[in-house]
């Protein structure tokens, strides 16, 4: 039982950053933006969160900085891909390269190079009074940091916003048929910019989760491909929040399996466990061919 709890907790921990970023991406991808640059955006969030929390002596200032940093980078991507109609892949690639270099440099000039971790306020684990006492669920769902709860709660919220609200309808429509939206008086660019704003917030949270919840400081290159995985999770999850949730769990599961397998005596080389999620994504991509929710105008700039 304890083992199960622990496995589930690992899965949750590993899944959270992918889930957070993925939920943001679902929204912007539904509006027709394929954001390869998420990796760089998350890195920025991770670093800015650490800086903010350290300089402001409060985790909440950290959260604010992470969000501001990520949103800013995401809006740069938006500016290039929406206003300048640049190729979204290219913009994303450029941002990844840029952020990779900039975070290293900024990190060093801010935190210096030392063993003494600067004293960074971190996320505190939260105990939820009632749930805490329920046997299994209590162990899993109580005593996590707030971002895990935000990620979990965001799944139904994002789902509701996408499918039940006026804004959500606009977002989905803009990705499907921008021209039709234009004839109905919806500003395609404005909707797309807003989704990039939101996705920036989520990527920022994902970033600071990695640096200050999963870990306790920023280290260089710490996002380690999770941004790309988040992009893949959206495809794998067939562009729905619930799907992204499942995808994030699968990715988290594969990650946790890797450690379990090393700790046990099964010796399937861990690299193969690590490959699994990527291969599953490719399979998912092939299978969704007919029933894909992929927006019809994904990754295409709208030119009036």
């Amino acid at each position: 039982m304890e083992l199960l709890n622990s496995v589930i907790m690992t899965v949750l921990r590993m899944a959270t950053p992918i889930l957070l970023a993925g939920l943001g991406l679902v929204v912007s991808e539904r509006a027709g933006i394929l954001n390869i640059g998420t990796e760089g955006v998350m890195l920025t969030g991770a670093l800015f969160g650490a800086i903010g929390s350290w300089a402001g002596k409060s985790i909440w200032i950290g959260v604010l900085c992470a969000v501001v940093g990520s949103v800013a980078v995401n809006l740069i991507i938006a500016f290039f891909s929406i206003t300048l109609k640049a190729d979204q892949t290219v913009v994303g690639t450029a941002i990844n390269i840029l952020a990779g270099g900039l975070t290293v440099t900024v990190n060093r000039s801010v935190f210096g190079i030392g063993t003494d971790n600067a004293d960074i306020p971190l996320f505190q684990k939260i105990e939820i009074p009632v749930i805490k006492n329920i046997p299994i669920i209590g162990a899993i769902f109580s005593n996590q940091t707030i971002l895990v709860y935000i990620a979990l709660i965001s799944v139904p919220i994002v789902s509701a916003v996408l499918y039940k609200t006026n804004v959500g309808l606009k977002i989905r429509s803009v990705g499907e048929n921008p021209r039709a939206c234009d004839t109905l008086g919806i500003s395609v660019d404005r909707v797309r910019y807003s989704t990039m704003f939101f996705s920036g917030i989520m990527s920022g949270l994902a970033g600071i989760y990695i640096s200050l919840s999963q870990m306790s400081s920023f280290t260089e290159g710490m996002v380690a491909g999770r941004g790309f995985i988040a992009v893949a999770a959206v495809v794998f999850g067939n562009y729905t929040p619930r799907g992204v949730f499942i995808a994030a769990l699968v990715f988290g599961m594969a990650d946790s399996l890797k450690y379990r397998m090393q700790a046990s005596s099964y010796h399937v080389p861990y690299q193969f466990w690590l490959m699994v999620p990527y291969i599953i994504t490719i399979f998912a991509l092939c299978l969704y061919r007919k029933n894909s929710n992929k927006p019809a105008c994904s990754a295409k700039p709208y030119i009036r």
Partner: protein
Amino acid sequence: MKNGKNKTLYDPLFSLIYAALSVIAALIIAGLVMKIMGYRPLNSYRYLLQGSFGSINSLCETAVKTTPLILTAVAFSTAFKSGMINLGATGQLYMGAICTTLIATNFDQLPRGIHITISLLAGIAAGALFGYLVGLLKSVFGASELITTIMLNYVAAYLVSFLVTGPMKDTKGSNSNPQSCQILESAKLPLFVPGSRLNIGFLIALLVIVLYFLFFWHTSLGYGIRVIGLNENTGKYAGISKNLNQGIAMAISGGLAGLAGAIEILGVQTRLTQAFAGDLGFEGIAAALLGSNSPIGILFSSLLFGAMSSGAGTMEMLAKVPNAFISVIQGLIILFIIGRNLPAGKIKEVLIKKHVIKEEEAIGIIE
């Protein structure tokens, strides 16, 4: 449709000037950032230059670094010409490197020339197959190459990691790092300038640029691929198969990336290690875009990026600017290049608006 402004915008000379301006602008902004961070930009740039062009040796190093960039850039451009965006150069490069290493660490009876040739061919073949797989996934299942290539990058990287920690691990060496055995002498690429690391790989890369030019502008197959990439409908009308040509282009693209991996192994690395390619794949994409997929453009932009990464070491070693800063400069250069759409976008917008109107007119006429 005749638009003077538009014409000048795509003029090669204009492109060259624009690219040069982008580089300068990126350097200025990066310099400012450096200044803010407490480094000395001018001093750093001096070392950057010294490290890339300062001596025969630095020139050779620049050429060494340029070699895989040219190959991955041409790989990206080849796929791009057929309308495919191949973000998988990294993975294809690894697959090439694996197969090359397998051949190059075995078969010690082979004469040198043959051993090298077979090793290179193995790399090309492995990369080509991996690239073709992407084309196949697209034509059969409609899976977007954007995602599949990124996913396959990881698969290949983990495969390398598995091989060098497991089956291909060097158990006889002086240290126990996860790496393959050293390749045999008979498979090492001959040096081009003795005493440096510059090997004939650079010549191969230059040859590839020439072949790239010949292929797309002077062969029937290349021409057909370009038609598909530029206008699928016209291709259909002329009976040029989209699936076939995109598959061929992806295979060539993957093969070139595989060749990059092969040359790295045979000429530079001499053994397979984890993550030895680093960001080569993505830098190749950047070089291709910077050179707007033209042979000359790719040559110059690869040289630029190659010079940067060869100078980066010197800049770091002697001006103490972190290596990572080169990425900042590269990222900025790409962004400035895309910024070209700023004026072009506006003009295009007008053009396309006109076109749309025409289209709607046409629709009005048709039905």
